[in-house]
């Protein structure tokens, strides 16, 4: 029976690859079949050199088959299983039972770090196979619970281990990082901006997307960065999802439960944001999964990039289809956009006059993608603080992030309890139908909404958005029923309601 297995990545999942080896007579040559890509084909030279460094001389024609034969294999991580497979076929070593190997070989036999160790560890755990990974990947694997894994520094050590001459180091499960990382920046470091802070608190509590508008230097970026630290910590399951994506890309891992924060620049390409490329890789929107995706200078982004973000914002995942196959990456993000109110940036500023013509402001505004704005529940202006205010506010920044986070957590628990029978986690996920049924207004509230909606021409979708935000505000306040107070606050954050150009 064939016992040597490798892995290849398909999206953020690892696929088991059986490595079959047959050695026959003839001139020395290693032939790799089973849809290998260029880096797998090149494994031949690395494998030969690494085996020779151990004194294992390979002769004759070596045929390596990677099964299943119909799915493409990519990456240098198949070097190690191919080398082990050849040595096993020659009888140099004996692999006792089905085992997973992964790693790239150096010519001298050292084993190099590869990407995708976390998906491989999950696969090994599900299959119940032991796993051998490069030393450089040991930390990632240690974060996966319940996997039997060993770390390999040099292929010589692995062979000695399989021959029973010595023991490789077992990867112990990592201690969880104790204590929360210090919020950076902390809410208390941000002066003033009470309205914006309140909006972020609501956004964190109900998972509502936010648009921040404000003059240059008013602190939009700082506020967005502070948002990640008032979000509740990652749960076990969410943490695994975040690790999976990071490991697939090959980024270093972090065992803290802080949510990811990814800021993308407006010159980013669609592929770098959404994922894809010749070797399919997850993009920024997947790296921000379960965390915050921040788009600074929102109006400068290319239209097609913004349009391609519509699907992930709606569904929580992104499908990338290529000729080589289609993969799905997770992409459930809290979307935060920031932009200036007008081209010069000072529209609505109390001191600096705006120098833009009305048509320029109009053009600027039209750059914003309607369908994306449609998915934004909270719009808030971030005013520039006057020098007076800045000096006065010295030393009194308000509440700390930790305090705000406690409130957010409580509001999340309320929502979790309320919606768990319906299968939603937070207010923002609620579809229209469920909303009408579940969110009840008292008579006063109904009258108030009718009155205001009529006066400011609130659309049907506008009303349901106001209701969702109002629900979150009530949850933050710990109240069962929606009242006029909550509705009034929610109306203040409605799209356009607080944008200077609509005044």
């Amino acid at each position, binding site marked *: 029976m064939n016992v040597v297995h490798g892995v290849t990545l398909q999206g953020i999942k690892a696929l088991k690859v059986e490595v079959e080896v047959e050695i*026959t*007579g*003839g*001139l*020395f*040559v*290693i*032939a790799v079949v089973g849809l290998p890509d260029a880096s797998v084909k090149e494994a031949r*030279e690395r494998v*030969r050199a690494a085996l020779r460094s151990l004194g294992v001389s390979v*002769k*004759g*024609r070596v045929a390596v088959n990677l099964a299943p034969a119909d799915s493409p294999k990519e990456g240098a991580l198949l070097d190690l299983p191919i080398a082990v497979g050849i040595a096993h076929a020659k009888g140099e070593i004996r692999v006792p039972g089905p085992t997973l190997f992964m790693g790239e070989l150096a010519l001298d036999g050292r084993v190099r770090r590869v990407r995708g160790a976390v998906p491989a560890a999950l696969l090994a755990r599900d299959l119940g196979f032991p796993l051998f990974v490069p030393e450089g990947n040991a930390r990632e694997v240690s974060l996966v619970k319940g996997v039997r894994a060993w770390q390999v520094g040099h292929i010589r050590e692995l062979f000695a281990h399989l021959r029973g001459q010595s023991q490789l180091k077992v990867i112990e499960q990592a201690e969880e990082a104790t204590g929360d990382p210090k919020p950076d920046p902390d809410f208390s470091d941000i002066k003033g901006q009470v309205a914006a802070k309140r909006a972020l608190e609501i956004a964190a509590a109900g998972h509502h997307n936010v648009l921040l508008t404000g003059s240059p230097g008013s602190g939009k970026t700082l506020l967005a960065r502070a948002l990640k630290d008032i979000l509740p910590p990652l749960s076990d399951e969410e943490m695994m999802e975040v690790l999976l994506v990071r490991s697939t890309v090959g980024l270093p891992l972090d065992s803290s439960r802080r949510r990811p924060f990814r800021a993308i620049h407006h010159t980013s390409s669609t592929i770098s944001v959404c994922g894809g490329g010749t070797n399919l890789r997850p993009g920024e929107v997947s790296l921000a999964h379960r965390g915050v995706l921040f788009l600074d200078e929102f109006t400068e982004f290319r239209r097609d990039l913004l349009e391609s973000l519509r699907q992930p914002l709606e569904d929580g995942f992104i499908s990338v289809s290529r000729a080589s196959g289609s993969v799905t990456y997770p992409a459930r993000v809290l979307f935060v956009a920031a932009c200036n109110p007008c081209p010069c940036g000072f529209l609505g500023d109390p001191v600096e006059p705006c120098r833009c013509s009305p048509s320029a402001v109009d053009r600027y505004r039209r750059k914003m993608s309607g369908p994306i704005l449609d998915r934004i529940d909270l719009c808030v202006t971030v005013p520039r603080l006057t020098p007076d205010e800045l000096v006065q506010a010295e030393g009194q920044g308000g509440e700390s992030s930790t305090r705000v986070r406690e409130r957010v957590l409580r509001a999340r628990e309320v929502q979790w309890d309320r919606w768990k029978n319906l299968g939603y986690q937070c207010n923002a996920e609620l579809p229209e139908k469920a909303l009408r049924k579940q969110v009840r207004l008292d008579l006063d509230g109904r009258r108030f909404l009718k009155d205001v909606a009529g006066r400011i021409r609130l659309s049907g979708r506008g009303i349901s958005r106001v209701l969702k935000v109002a629900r979150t505000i009530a949850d933050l306040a710990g109240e069962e029923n929606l009242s006029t107070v909550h509705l009034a606050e929610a109306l203040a954050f409605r799209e356009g309601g607080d944008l200077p150009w609509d005044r």
Partner: protein
Amino acid sequence: MAKHIDLGAAGEAMAARELLKLGYRLIDTNVRMKMGELDIVAEEGGEMVVVEVRTRTLGRMVPPEATVGPSKIRKLVRTGRTYMESVGWEGPWRIDIAAITVGSDGSPKLEVFRDITVGIIEP
């Protein structure tokens, strides 16, 4: 006989003697096949070896081993394969070059290049 033919024949005789000392077991020399000739066929380390002998006098611009080019290698592979088939050998085999440089005082120097096709021929 022409001078270079003599040199070549002397080189092949010397290569055969020296290879014996290196642990090769000679099986055949000057095997003529339809598509070409194999200078020496030997056995070493459980493998059959086709040895191509090249002899040159010192001072030529190109060393002897460099005179085996891609087309000669292709020819050696083809001829070697046919030979192995004709003698019924199914195990591994390889191609070596024995390069002899004759110094100005007439003393020959032998170098053996083992397994020259590694990494060159595609599966």
